[in-house]
């Protein structure tokens, strides 16, 4: 019974923790411009993140070490450094976007300028990392993040033309008013949002924090294979709400308030209250994950003592890196840059960095020296290789499409 509850809790936190500001904003932007004609990218991204997250979790459970530690040992310092630099910069950008996202969500609840909330949000992120245990931190934000189910409820309440929405999703095409390059730019952005590099590093480091063993592989697989696809359904629901309310009115999503308007239209004050809790929890949870991931990456590459399972004094350089990352993110936001723009760029640069993150994971999870008889099976390997091709294509296309479309404008 306890084990069953553990599995259920893991799945629920995986659903609630799946969405971050990148997913929320990008899906709303896409829904308001393209309807559900890019829903296939969410499906592709969810399959990819399931594949690589369970791979990195298995590596941690079998070896007792986080992915980044093994990458450096297995592939050498130079390749690992390229991986570190790319993943760290993208994670820092994502952390900046998440802290900005918390401030924007709090603005919707208070009408107080986001710039006043940003230092409060950054301090709260640091305080929780410093004072709270790993498991409660993950469970509380994940469970509160489940409030974003309100998007799915709102979509049903809006009473859309389901056949038109499904037709849009299963027979994707470029809308007449949009340039094909813009369509593909948002396809890459959506893919980058679903497969953000920090997610696998956090997943793998979290496995070490929670001291997973080979006995935990089945549960982690259930968390990923059930929780992430259900999280993906919420992503599509966000796009669906925007497609039903904002697209016919010709409203472009340029702020987080746009994301909330369809929910208010469908469910009124109560739905908005639930949404605001979900938005704060999702962005706060992702800010915790990205801040910790920044520390994990640097500490694991440099061989420092790391982890929340150690007292801060025993992992001082790890905690210092986390603090520096939070301060840098806050500094960027305090220049007055638009957090939504930061979010849009963070998902595109995530796509650019994808091969540097995912190729080493595939290599390590195939190495019997670390994995013993738990190396990838032939199906997982075949899927992994197919995904690497997709990931490389998205990475190569991201910058040219960014320039060609003026960041999708």
């Amino acid at each position, binding site marked *: 019974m306890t084990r069953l509850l553990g599995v259920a809790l893991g799945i629920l936190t995986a659903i609630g923790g799946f969405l971050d500001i990148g997913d929320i904003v990008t899906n709303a932007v896409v829904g308001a411009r393209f309807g559900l004609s890019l829903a296939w990218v969410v499906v592709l991204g969810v399959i990819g993140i399931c594949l690589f997250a369970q791979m990195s979790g298995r590596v941690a459970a079998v070896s007792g070490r986080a992915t980044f530690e093994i990458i450096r040992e297995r592939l050498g310092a130079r390749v690992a450094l390229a991986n570190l630099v790319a993943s760290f910069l993208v994670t820092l950008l994502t952390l900046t976007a998440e802290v900005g996202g918390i401030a924007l969500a709090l*603005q*919707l*609840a*208070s*009408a107080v300028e986001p710039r006043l909330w940003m230092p409060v949000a950054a301090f709260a992120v640091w305080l929780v990392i410093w004072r709270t245990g790993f498991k409660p931190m993950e469970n509380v934000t994940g469970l509160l993040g489940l409030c974003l189910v309100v998007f799915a409820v709102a979509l049903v309440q809006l009473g859309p033309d389901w056949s038109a929405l499904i037709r849009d999703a299963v027979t994707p095409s470029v809308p007449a008013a949009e340039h094909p390059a813009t369509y593909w730019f948002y396809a890459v952005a959506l893919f980058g949002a679903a497969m953000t590099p920090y997610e696998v590093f956090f997943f793998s480091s979290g496995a070490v924090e929670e001291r997973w063993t080979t006995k935990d592989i089945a549960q982690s697989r259930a968390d990923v294979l059930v929780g992430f696809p259900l999280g993906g359904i919420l992503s599509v629901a966000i796009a669906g709400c925007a497609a039903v*309310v904002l697209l016919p*009115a*010709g*409203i*472009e999503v*340029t*702020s*987080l*308030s*746009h994301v*909330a*308007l369809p929910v*208010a*239209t469908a469910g*009124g*004050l109560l739905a*908005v*209250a639930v949404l605001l809790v979900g938005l704060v929890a999702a962005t706060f949870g992702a800010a915790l994950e990205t801040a910790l991931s920044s520390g994990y990456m640097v500490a694991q590459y440099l061989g420092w003592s790391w982890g929340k399972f150690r007292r801060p004094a025993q992992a001082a350089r790890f905690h210092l890196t986390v603090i520096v990352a939070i301060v840098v993110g806050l500094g960027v936001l305090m220049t007055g840059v638009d957090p939504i723009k930061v979010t849009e760029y963070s998902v595109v640069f995530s796509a650019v960095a994808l091969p540097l993150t995912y190729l080493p994971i595939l290599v390590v999870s195939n190495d019997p020296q670390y994995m013993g008889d738990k190396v990838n099976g032939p199906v997982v390997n075949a899927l992994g290789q197919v995904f690497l091709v997709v990931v490389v294509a998205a990475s190569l296309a991201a910058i*040219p499409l960014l*320039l*060609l*479309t*003026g960041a999708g*404008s």
Partner: protein
Amino acid sequence: MNRPHATAVACAVLATLLLAGCATHEGGTPGFLGRALEGAASAAETGALAADLAGADRAPAALLDSALGDAIADARTAAGEVATRQVTDPDDAAAQQASLAAIEEALAALVDARAWASGAHDGAAAPVSERLRQAADRLTGLAEEVGGP
């Protein structure tokens, strides 16, 4: 830097400039004005939706104020882009003036709607959202006229 590397870097820089140039000059001034007008129309429609929600008491005041504040910021951005665009053709100059006037009309309606939503004016939601929808329709019509379909 050796010669093949220098050539590769030069090609990359050239490709970047070409791509960036394609993005910034697509459609020339009419295309630019059309995109700014569409942005302003989106802001006016956002204001109309927020006014409808305020009238039906379906959203908290903080959300409505944020939505209207964001819409005003979007309309101001569009006005700024149109106002600072340098034009050399008389037809483009006329289109620029017409665009600016339409955006400023929408901006005024948005500012008024925000004041209404904050309780500064009495009255029903319908005239507020109607004024914003008319402004949005004008902007959309002008965007098609100026920037092409």
